[in-house]
């Protein structure tokens, strides 16, 4: 039996990062974390351990992200100027902000996949969350990394 408080403490920072990767907006990401844990709290008594609890929570979170479109909330995409000179001595916060912006420019499923990959989830678990095959996930992660590399290079942020 899982305790809601400990699940919330363990997973809310991770879920926040994944939601942030999807929406690139602090307030929207916080709302999505809350919506996710509302669903977790409501469905926890019926959770049958058919999958890992982390897989279950990530599924709920990413489904809420996908549904955020249905609610017509604005997903923050930042148009980044191209061909900037190399950016040096950036703070970690600035680097992270750029990473979020770069991810926000990807298509929806790619945003979810790369956020889960960056979160350190095994690719088999990403496949269980997204409903894709493990092979498809591996191929997609490779392509997404290439896309991100191009973006970083274009903005002088990648050697």
């Amino acid at each position, binding site marked *: 039996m899982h305790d*809601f*408080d400990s699940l*919330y*403490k363990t997973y*809310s*920072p991770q879920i*926040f*990062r994944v939601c*942030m*990767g999807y929406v690139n907006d*602090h307030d929207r*990401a*916080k709302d999505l*974390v*809350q919506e996710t*844990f*509302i669903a977790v*709290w*409501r*469905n926890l008594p019926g*959770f049958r351990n*058919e*999958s890992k609890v982390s897989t*279950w929570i990530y*599924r709920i979170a*990413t*489904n809420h992200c*996908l*549904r955020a*479109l*249905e609610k017509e909330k604005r997903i923050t995409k930042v148009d980044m100027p191209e061909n900037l000179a190399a950016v040096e001595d950036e703070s*970690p916060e600035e*680097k*992270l902000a*750029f*990473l979020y912006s770069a991810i926000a420019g990807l*298509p*929806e*499923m*790619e945003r*979810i996949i790369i956020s889960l*990959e*960056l*979160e*350190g989830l095994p690719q088999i678990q990403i496949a*269980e*969350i*997204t*409903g*894709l095959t493990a092979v*498809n996930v591996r191929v997609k992660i490779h392509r997404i*990394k290439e896309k*991100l*590399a191009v973006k*970083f290079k274009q903005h002088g*942020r*990648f*050697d």
Partner: protein
Amino acid sequence: MEDLDNLKNLWQSAKPVELPDAAELQQDIKDFRGTKLRNKVLSVTVAVLIVVLSLAALLLAQNLWLSTQAAILFNVAACIVLAATNLRSMKRFIGLKDFNNLDFLHFLQQTQRNQIRYYQRTEVAGLTLVTASTLLFPYQFLADSLAMAIGIYTFVVGWILVLWFYIRPRSFSKHSKKLNAEMGRFESIIQQTL
């Protein structure tokens, strides 16, 4: 940025944001559940109440003309359609399964199709019943006064025409555009999984 392999470290270095603590969240959950279900429960309760009162009136009131009895029955049928639609929608979302993203997208598409069917068929059926009920109900009470009958029926028919030929088409067009746009977006996300 030195290397893409460092992205993972950078990603996980994000400072924790101020999220509400678990107790605070549970209070929010109780409030959220209340507001979320309130409208659906209210519409089902009102519909059931109208059905009960209408049937009671039908059984207890004497000397009701056939037109009045038919109006009451049409009204009861409209309320049953309303209650059944809301109950089905509540059941569908309460029983939401542990879907992966792909299955969830298909679930959302099905929900959109159901909504379009609701606007195309269920709403038309409900409005037809309400229209019939609204036209038949006053007949018995206005039969003795031609002037009153003309006045009331002019107003009622005018309102029905506005409802059918102005309000409903506008509302249908607005909802259809929104639903079609959403279906297009979900279709595009599903295409990304191929």
